[in-house]
């Protein structure tokens, strides 16, 4: 099968869906001529023209409002936020408006919109361009949240997000954009709310989110040589969360490690830990472990950044502790 990058997979999704549906328009900061801060929307202006591919001013509140309003009156807008940190500038529009209008209107208003944005550290961006904020938005009922980790998933879940009649937030770890992976030429969708078992195993379950899936798979491969069989589950969707697939794995292994970006406390993984406790406590052989960012703003200096962000050796150490190695 052909291999393309994560970035190309998203770009291809835009093209395929925009060719099919004229009511898809896209906008965001620097997405037109420049092709977006990470080049994801390159070439779309040329193909679809300035009515459908728009640069916005640096006005996140207006960007979010444009997505909300245009979706209510019949479009299927896709807005790019340059970094997920900038979602917070539009906090009211996203949290108080976008997430709630459907419910507050008693179901009258429909918001078929998608927000996409890079997240995460690793490039010395320091504390305001490197956060993984999916956990923050998981605390807001009314939003769907997805975090694809591979080019295949990025394309399939984006297709579903565009078709979905709810606001969907797609968090894309910026260290993934260059990654290559198999993506078929034929059309396919990945349903929102379905986890993927990225690697089968029997000794321990790792539930990993976004870029942490890649790191966890590396450790799983490494530990296999030492005779440890690790199952790696990628929820892909955090809201709704496919807890069944996770529970099935936990019942098999009895041991769990949850790995995620964002501060360790009250993060995306915390919810997964809580649900495993709720639904599979009696199957656990040991406490559930977590590997995540240290609870600090992400620092600039490479040596400090590395210290705060979760690394492969942290995952390896946690696996060994759980396995009493």
């Amino acid at each position, binding site marked *: 099968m052909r291999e393309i990058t994560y970035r190309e997979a998203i770009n291809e999704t835009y093209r395929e869906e925009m060719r099919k549906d004229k009511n898809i328009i896209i906008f965001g900061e620097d997405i037109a001529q420049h092709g977006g801060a990470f080049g994801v929307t390159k070439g779309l202006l040329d193909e679809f023209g300035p009515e459908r591919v728009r640069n916005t001013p640096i006005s996140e509140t207006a960007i979010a409002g444009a997505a909300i309003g245009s979706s209510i*009156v019949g479009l299927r807008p896709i807005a790019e936020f340059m970094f997920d940190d900038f979602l917070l500038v539009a906090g009211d529009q996203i949290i108080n408006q976008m997430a709630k209008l459907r419910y507050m209107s008693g179901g009258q208003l429909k918001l078929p919109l998608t927000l996409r944005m890079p997240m995460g550290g690793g490039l010395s961006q320091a504390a305001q361009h490197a956060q993984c904020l999916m956990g923050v938005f998981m605390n807001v009922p009314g939003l*769907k949240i997805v975090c694809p980790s591979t080019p295949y998933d990025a394309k399939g879940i984006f297709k579903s997000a565009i078709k979905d009649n709810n606001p969907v937030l797609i968090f894309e770890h910026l260290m993934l954009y260059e990654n290559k992976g198999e993506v078929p030429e034929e059309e396919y969708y990945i349903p929102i709310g379905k986890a993927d078992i990225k690697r089968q195993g029997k000794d321990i379950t790792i539930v990993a989110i976004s870029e942490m899936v890649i790191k966890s798979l590396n450790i799983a491969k490494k530990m296999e040589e030492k005779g440890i069989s690790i199952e790696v589950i990628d929820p892909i969707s955090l809201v709704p969360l496919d807890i069944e697939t996770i529970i099935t794995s936990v019942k098999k292994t009895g041991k769990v490690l949850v790995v995620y970006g964002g501060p360790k406390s009250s993060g995306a993984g915390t919810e997964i830990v809580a649900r495993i406790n709720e639904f599979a406590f009696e199957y656990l052989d040991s406490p559930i472990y977590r590997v995540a960012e240290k609870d600090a703003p992400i620092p600039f200096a490479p040596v400090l950044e590395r210290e705060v962000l979760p690394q492969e050796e942290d995952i390896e150490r946690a696996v060994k502790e759980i396995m009493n190695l």
Partner: protein
Amino acid sequence: MEIKLLTSMLETMLKIRMFEENIVKLFKAGELPGWLHVYIGEEAVATGVCLNLTIKDYITSTHRGHGHCIAKGANIKNMMAELYGKKTGCCKGRGGSMHISDASVGILGANGIVGGGIPIATGAALGCQYLKEGRIVVSFFGDGASDEGSFHESLNLASIWKLPVIYVCENNLYAETNPLNMHLNVENIADRAKAYNIPSIIVDGMDVIDVYNKINKVASDIRNGDGPVLVEAKTYRYRGHYEGDPEVYRTKEEVNEWKMKDPILKLEEKIIKERILTLSEIENIKKVVQNEIEEAIEFGRKSPEPLKEEAMDNVYY
């Protein structure tokens, strides 16, 4: 001006006024849950603006939104039931006074966040421009909201993209309890349009005919493809920011002075003077409106509560 239009202005303003006079009583009697922010005194604005809109046009409203909703044609039975938190409410009891919406007549929602509706209206205007069905959007908000970032970001975006939206700022002189000269430093809120290179006009928000005529021109320009306009309506709310407001920030004399400019009395005088309707015909309109409101109250009272089992409905599509 034609008789039908003048009568319709009077009917709408009376409907708003009497609806709110009734709900103030119901609220005081403890019949309505939550909070109440009423529009009494400002009726000419919503009425004069919305008479220039069709059912297909859109509005966004505010926490003080009953007037906008009634003027845009919301069903007052369902509005009343919403205030009661009933299953038959326009939002099935999920929104209440501050979040009334009625998609069937283009009301994209009253809004509990000051300035929250302005970006949404701007987005709706983007959709209208793209779909080319001749619809326009009106965003109602107050003087306080003109200090929010959402106002400035929205006007700038609408200006760049030439969006079909009228921003109607109801300047009632107080941002909640904070007087105008304490919360902004321009002579007129309309002046703020200059920063975005969009036209602005000032209307007498206590005179429905002035509002109607000026918006008529603006709306027709926008329907013909002109970009956004900022309208400042100079108006006044007779009651507090919320029901129960001790109103320490203004004098009774000031309130009474504004009441002398009452938009309903002013229109009634004109209508009688010009022999368009007689006093008894006006009394008759009031009777009909009061009956309609009483029916709405009965409907609200007798409607069933939402079912507990339905609390999770419509969180998602």
